[in-house]
């Protein structure tokens, strides 16, 4: 990263649900209309983040209920929770890790952006995202998501949603500074008697290495449609590659065993002998090589996890340069 890592701190305790962020995002990024239906479930007719919705204001109506688990405010009256959701720009981003074309890259600002001229619409990033953010646009085929207004950041402007937010619920800035500010805000709310206030996505030790866009919430994350303990699944990739290697070897071994048990074929004629000689010799050599290769792959797989952070740094720089040049 050549620049300081920036991000969003969305303080939902001051969100008034005006949706100015949604509108500003659509306007600035020229996002197409993606449905004008009424859901009937709440004032939320946007429903979810998606290919053409990069900010989504959730409306949660909590009615006092008998079981007392999460009902309403301290006085037992109904309350509204509103929260503007966005791409988390994860420190360890699964979408970026699994993208086979290199279309998704990390910018010099530490954000995660799709290069639309590279994306071939394989859709792998969609189920990889633990937050359900990125999506393919049906008519287009390619994947789209929040860029944190990469074009605006480049000229020193803040993202459109933060600019438009009338209550400063969406705060943009250097991530370290935002984390300090958020910690103070939680303390302030706790002192004021809002015991449920908690930060989400601020912890650098969480399953995605912390979010570039984190939140102050007033209830459990799942109430807002957020996963309570997300992980970047590439964390388990070294284990998975080892198992795949073992499984591949077991196919070779199982079939070799089957041939050994069945013995020679009825017609080991001369016609096959020439080709067979070549295959045997070659098979043994390559087989040995393959075994060594698997060992290396497994070893390397183990290193992927550890090296990811270091390697990512180097890749970020290069990808960013590439992205810049293209622009």
């Amino acid at each position, binding site marked *: 990263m050549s620049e300081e890592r920036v991000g969003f701190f969305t303080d939902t305790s001051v969100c008034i649900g005006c949706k100015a962020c949604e509108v500003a995002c659509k306007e600035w990024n020229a996002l197409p209309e993606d449905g004008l239906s009424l859901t009937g*479930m709440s004032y939320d007719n946007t*429903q*979810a983040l998606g290919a053409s919705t990069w900010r989504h204001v959730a409306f*949660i109506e909590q009615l006092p209920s008998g079981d007392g688990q*999460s009902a309403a405010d301290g006085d037992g009256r109904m309350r509204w929770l509103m929260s503007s959701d966005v791409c988390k720009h994860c420190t360890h981003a699964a979408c970026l*890790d699994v*993208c*086979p*074309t*290199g279309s998704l890259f990390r910018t010099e600002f530490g954000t995660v952006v799709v290069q639309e001229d*590279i*994306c*071939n*619409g*394989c859709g792998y990033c*969609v*189920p*990889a995202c*633990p937050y*359900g953010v990125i999506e393919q646009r049906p008519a287009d*085929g390619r994947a789209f998501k929040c860029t944190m207004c990469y074009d605006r950041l480049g000229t020193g402007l803040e993202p459109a949603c933060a600019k438009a937010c009338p209550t400063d619920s969406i705060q943009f800035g250097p991530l370290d500074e935002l984390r300090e500010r958020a910690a103070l805000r939680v303390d302030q709310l706790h002192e004021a008697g809002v015991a449920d206030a908690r930060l989400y996505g601020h912890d650098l030790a969480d399953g995605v290495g912390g979010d570039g866009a984190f939140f102050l919430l007033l*209830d*459990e994350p*799942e109430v*807002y*449609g*957020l*996963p309570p*303990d*997300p992980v970047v699944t590439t964390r388990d*990739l070294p284990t*998975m590659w080892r*198992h795949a*290697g073992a*499984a*591949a070897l*077991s*196919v*070779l071994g*199982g*079939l070799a*065993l*089957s*041939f050994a*048990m*069945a*013995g*020679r*074929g*009825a*017609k*080991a004629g001369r016609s*096959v002998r*020439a080709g067979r000689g*070549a*295959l*045997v010799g070659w*098979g043994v050599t390559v087989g040995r090589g*393959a075994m060594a290769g698997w060992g290396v792959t497994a070893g390397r797989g183990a290193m*992927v996890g550890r090296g990811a952070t270091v390697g990512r740094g180097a890749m970020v720089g290069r990808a960013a340069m590439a992205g810049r040049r293209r622009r």
Partner: protein
Amino acid sequence: MTRTESGPAPKGGRRRGDQPMVPRADFDSYYGRPVIKAPSWGAVDIAGYFFLGGLAGAGSTLAAGAHLTGRPRTATAMKVSSLAAVSLSAAALIHDLGRPSRFANMLRVLKPTSPMSVGSWLLSGYGPAAGVAAASAVTGRLPRTGALATGAAALLGPAVASYTGVLAADTAVPAWHGAHRELPHLFAASATAAAAGMALAVGPTRENGPARYAAGLAALADLASATAAERSLGMVAETWRQGRAGFLLRTARVLTVSGAVGAAVLGGRRPAAIASGLALLAGSACTRFGVFAAGIASAKDPRYTVLPQRERAEARADTGPGG
């Protein structure tokens, strides 16, 4: 806000090794909406590819074995089958892209963190090898080149068959990632069963001894890894047992077991060998379509995303900070 009820407790008593905690009975979801997005992949394209890629990959190894041990008709038939399967695979994969004309971008970079990138490179090495092996076997020309290609395809094939398990497991889809240790083994076993089934169906009975043994071994490995997967999945294993996925996976088990038993007992007779082979092929296809359907079902219900995560977070909180 919607209070989401958790389903009935899994059948059967709790055994040792089961989940240490009972998941919270219910939780608040956002109007019952999914937390993660299900893949938009077409089942026919992608589950179909899992099946065909496995059939091709394990089939190439079986073909090389037949080639080496003097079973020429099975060898040729399996080489042709692998070429056909990998060609259909490539077509399905390109068809499923949002931008099919940009399929070549798959080879723009090589990323070990992306199973799809690794798979693309594997296929681009394996595909031509399978093609040359089949062409040489059918035409009888360039036997040495054909033998080399047969060997290369035989060694790359098992990787093609098993990496698809990683492809599915390296996602946030609970029914796939929860079984990330078992899925490559299940897919490899299922691929071997499919290849053995094809060899039984198309090879002459005097050459099908190895395929009969392979069918039995593959069926055992298939059952063992599917059982292990369901154990690892905990409450998410529901998605492997219910609905369309449950039906497909139960059918897969019946077909695979009956195919393997049929091959072992009656494989010496042509009609029985063909029937057993077809059952094994159908069983493998049902396994892939079943696992695919379970993944989609688990992605669409927030319960399967939230409850295991909540359980994990609570277990961590119980063991204290840093635990």
